[in-house]
């Protein structure tokens, strides 16, 4: 009951403010009236009585104030008043507040944008799935650590119906190409079981999921498309269901659309475009083995629902006995190291990956912290400068009776208001950034959004920034000596010292920015080094065109004819010197485990090598010299003994001699021996980044014709400009059959450059933050210097009156700037050099493995110093000019 009275009283106080005030005035008026009457009744003169009443009552306004205090309105009132006052002040001082809000907006915006990536990849789950009773099952590998399952292993697990009510599987996301009109696009596919939706408790938003029959090999290919791709590529047209699509050249019927808001099995923020039955996996990879127990890789996630009343321990026991049984039945393929069962809530993606993801997250959080620190210290610098500039105002307010608490509250409200405005600006920026990323046409779609979690993060960040970095200036501003602050606005006690809190913050910002810029430099060095590497094959004048005849309905026989005609036509184009048919991405090796003849097979001694498909004329067209033996040619046809050309390094490392002609090896899991007929000089690959890590990869080249494969494209070499060949090549293709899609048309130079996109993006990202940081530091520095000049105006005036020239005054300002920047630059550069040197120490972690080794590049360091100088000059220019233009007389009279 009392709570109700309190609540009523407080609500009235806040919401019926005016009525409460009226009540009080009325009550006091009535009281006075009665008192006056009482005195008159006692025989006092009416005029005298009135005056006495007024005297006794004292100050009605202060009485009202006291009553309000008693009602607990004081704090609320004060906060409202402070907010209004602060808002008015900030609008009035827009020259300060607009840059401050922009600075904060940039900092908080960058932070929020990065956080939205972390949120999508590492925090957000799917609210659509009920995880109670859902478990994730991971067969353990030979090391005993949980791995993924093979398809037969999944079937064995699902057969344990005494513990699992139902089980489903889905493969790791796989990149596929699909035909989109006249072109080809990259998409993300998952190969999943018919039970997928039931186990997760989901329903397609349109159409149906695949049936157990469609999961069996030989059934027609079907797909359920993602909700995202349905809206973006199919215009959310319900008629998309029933349509046929070409994925990896195979005709696939769309039978349904996944639920809205469901992205993928793996909660990585990546959006899956196609779900297909596992048998489609075998068809599209062209290898039935991917679904066998002895597959090269086990790509399947398994999730199951526990039967009612079955405990986790019972499920684990059942899986242990399954593991032992399989090890007995399939001793070659099943290690028998147990099967890990974990509640779905405890796994994000996979126990083996989750740790790595956390590592990536902490790296991103580290970057976040740096951006945040820069943004916060900029705000703190600005607020400190502002607080110092207002020390006179604060002193006056303290002198006329404001308490220290009131002033701190006022200053805090002001910085909170600033940081919240900055937060709002930041969210807008982050929202734009996220939308910008979404609008990019990337092969992988990330489901990024500024959702409630992200907004809460930005809000927390803003409040935290406002409080933390408003507090120090507020405390400092109120801890001053009243009389001296009011009397003089010349040098305050601290300004003679070079290393105040203000300067310290700027030094910190410069340091961090310099380290970031130096890191950018290292990445740029890596990119330059990667570009400068010897590729070992022809790049200039090489143009490539890929198509996908299967998606236009071509059978193998027609495909062969088509490519022969295409090659002839392109060969006749003006300027074309050589042409060769290619399969897949040129010079992009597929890693395969190989077994060498004579190796001890029982020890499972496989080695890794990269396989590249070639055709007659490949080595000539790409200028790769054959050191021993012969190149792949027309003798290597189907039916002839399997042959390969190996790279120099593969020959030396695996066969002990460069001349390895006649030696044999086989691909692990295949029976046929491959005889080496030639050794080619070492080359790099199409990935400049891979080459940086391993400049002489172990490669073997085989004839795709001999293996019974079809070509997928044509490579043409010209002595002229390869880029100008791309148009005519595409026209020749469409002239043969306008139905044929263009899967890719680029020059070799473009192909190699594309592999540098990631390090370039990282360099751009770090460099962007570094430049942003130094710019912010520059703004802070400007504020500090401008403030110092204003405070020292009297000192400057006196010195000029005593004969100091303008140059001396400007020199003074310049010395201040140089001291702060010099300290920051020196610390930053020292740190950067240390980091580079330690990276050099780690660049050779094992014999034979050489990572890129960065060097201390004087030119880069010089560029950084130059940038700092430019920032310093920009920051000091206006204040220095003001100092130099100062009229000694008016400066002295300024008091």
């Amino acid at each position, binding site marked *: *009951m*009392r709570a109700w009275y*309190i609540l009523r*009283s407080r609500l009235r106080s806040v919401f019926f403010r005016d009525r409460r005030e009226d*009540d009080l005035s009325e*009550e006091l008026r*009535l009281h006075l009236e009665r008192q006056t009457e009482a005195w008159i009744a006692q025989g006092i003169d009416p005029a005298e009585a009135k005056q006495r009443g007024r005297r006794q*009552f004292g100050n009605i306004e202060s009485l009202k104030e006291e009553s309000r205090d008693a*009602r607990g309105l004081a704090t609320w009132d004060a906060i409202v008043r402070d907010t209004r006052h602060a808002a008015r002040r900030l609008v009035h001082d827009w020259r300060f507040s607009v840059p401050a809000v922009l600075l904060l907006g940039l900092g908080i915006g960058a932070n929020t944008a990065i956080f939205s990536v972390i949120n999508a990849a590492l925090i957000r789950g799917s609210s659509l799935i009920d995880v109670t009773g859902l478990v994730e099952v991971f067969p353990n590998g030979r090391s005993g650590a949980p791995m993924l399952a093979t398809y037969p292993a999944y079937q064995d697990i699902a057969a344990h119906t005494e513990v699992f009510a139902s089980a489903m599987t889905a493969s790791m996301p796989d990149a596929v190409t699909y035909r989109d009109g006249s072109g080809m696009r990259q998409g993300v596919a998952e190969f999943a079981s018919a039970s997928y939706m039931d186990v997760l408790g989901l329903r397609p938003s349109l159409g149906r999921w695949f049936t157990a029959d469609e999961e069996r090999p030989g059934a027609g290919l079907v797909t359920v498309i993602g909700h995202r791709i349905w809206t973006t590529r199919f215009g959310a047209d319900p008629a998309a269901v029933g349509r046929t699509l070409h994925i990896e050249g195979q005709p696939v019927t769309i039978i349904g659309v996944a639920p809205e808001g469901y992205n993928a099995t793996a909660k990585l923020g990546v959006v899956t475009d196609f779900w297909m039955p596992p048998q489609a996996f075998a068809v599209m990879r062209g290898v039935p083995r991917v679904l066998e127990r002895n597959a090269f890789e086990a790509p399947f996630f398994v999730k199951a629902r526990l039967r009612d009343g079955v405990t986790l321990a019972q499920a684990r026991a059942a899986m242990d006995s399954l593991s032992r049984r399989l090890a007995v039945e399939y001793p070659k393929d099943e290690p028998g190291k147990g099967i890990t069962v974990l509640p779905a809530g405890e796994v994000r993606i996979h126990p083996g990956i989750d740790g790595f993801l956390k590592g990536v997250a902490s790296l991103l959080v580290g970057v976040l912290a740096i951006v945040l620190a820069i943004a916060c210290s900029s705000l703190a610098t600005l607020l400190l400068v502002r607080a110092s500039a207002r020390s006179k105002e604060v002193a006056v307010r303290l002198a006329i009776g404001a308490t220290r608490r009131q002033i701190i509250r006022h200053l805090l409200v002001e910085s909170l208001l600033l940081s919240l405005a900055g937060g709002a600006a930041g969210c807008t920026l982050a929202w734009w950034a996220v939308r910008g990323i979404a609008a990019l046409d990337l092969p992988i779609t990330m489901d990024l959004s500024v959702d409630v979690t992200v907004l809460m993060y930005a809000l927390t960040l803003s409040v935290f920034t406002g409080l933390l970095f408003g507090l120090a200036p507020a405390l400092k501003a109120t801890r001053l000596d009243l009389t001296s602050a009011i009397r003089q606005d010349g040098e305050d006690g601290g300004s003679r010292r070079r290393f105040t809190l203000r300067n310290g913050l700027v030094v910190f910002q410069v340091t961090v920015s310099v380290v970031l810029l130096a890191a950018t430099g290292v990445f740029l060095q890596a990119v330059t080094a990667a570009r400068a590497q010897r590729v070992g094959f022809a790049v200039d004048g090489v143009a490539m065109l890929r198509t996908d005849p299967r998606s236009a309905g071509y059978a193998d026989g027609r495909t062969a004819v088509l490519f022969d005609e295409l090659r002839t036509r392109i060969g006749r184009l003006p300027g074309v010197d050589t042409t060769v048919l290619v399969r897949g991405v040129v010079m992009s090796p597929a890693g395969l485990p190989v077994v060498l003849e004579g190796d001890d097979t029982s020890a499972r001694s496989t080695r890794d090598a990269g396989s590249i498909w070639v055709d007659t004329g490949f080595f000539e067209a790409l200028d790769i010299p054959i050191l021993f033996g012969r190149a792949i040619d027309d003798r290597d046809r189907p039916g002839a003994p399997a042959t390969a050309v190996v790279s120099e390094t593969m020959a030396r490392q695996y066969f002990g001699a460069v001349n390895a002609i006649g030696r044999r090896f086989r691909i692990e899991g295949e029976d046929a021996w491959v005889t080496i007929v030639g050794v080619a000089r070492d080359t790099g690959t199409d990935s400049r980044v891979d080459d940086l890590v391993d400049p002489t990869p172990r490669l073997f080249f085989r004839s795709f014709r001999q293996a019974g494969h079809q070509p997928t494209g044509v490579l043409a070499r010209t002595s002229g400009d390869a880029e100008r060949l791309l148009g005519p090549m595409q026209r020749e293709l469409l002239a043969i059959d306008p139905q044929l899609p263009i899967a890719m048309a680029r020059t070799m130079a473009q192909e190699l450059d594309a592999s540098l996109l990631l390090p370039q993006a990282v360099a751009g990202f770090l460099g962007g933050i570094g430049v942003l940081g130094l710019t912010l530091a520059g703004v802070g520095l400007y504020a500090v210097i401008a403030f110092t000049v204003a405070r020292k105006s009297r000192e400057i005036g006196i010195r000029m009156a005593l004969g100091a020239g303008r140059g001396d005054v400007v020199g003074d300002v310049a010395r201040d700037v140089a001291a702060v920047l010099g300290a920051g630059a020196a610390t930053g550069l020292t740190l950067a050099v240390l980091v580079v040197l330690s990276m050099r120490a780690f660049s050779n972690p094992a014999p034979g493995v050489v990572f890129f080794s960065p060097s201390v590049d004087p030119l880069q360091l010089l560029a950084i110093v130059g940038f700092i100088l430019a920032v310093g000059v920009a920051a000091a220019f206006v204040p220095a000019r003001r100092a130099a233009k100062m009229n000694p007389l008016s400066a002295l009279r300024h008091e």
Partner: protein
Amino acid sequence: VSDQTDLIQGTLDLLILRTIALEPMHGWAIAQRIQQISDESLRVQQGSLYPALHRLEHQGWITAEWGTSEANRKARFYSLTKAGRRQLEVEVSKWERLSAGVNLVLQRT
């Protein structure tokens, strides 16, 4: 006016609660009643009365309504809430302990 006894902090609350425990009263009447009953030895300053009334209301011990007084005049009437009644008992026993203590000190020294 200066010979009046200043009320000890907190005592005024007790007096107000006790006074309006009998019947709802308006501010002026509360001050009058306290003055009368204490034989003019306790005088309540308006400057402390109204803040005290608002404080008590804010704490939920008393509640106020506009009404008409004996002479058919408008006035704001204060009455005790249930919590106020309990609080009055607490305050009374507190006061008794205090005054007994003070008396003991005065008698034994």
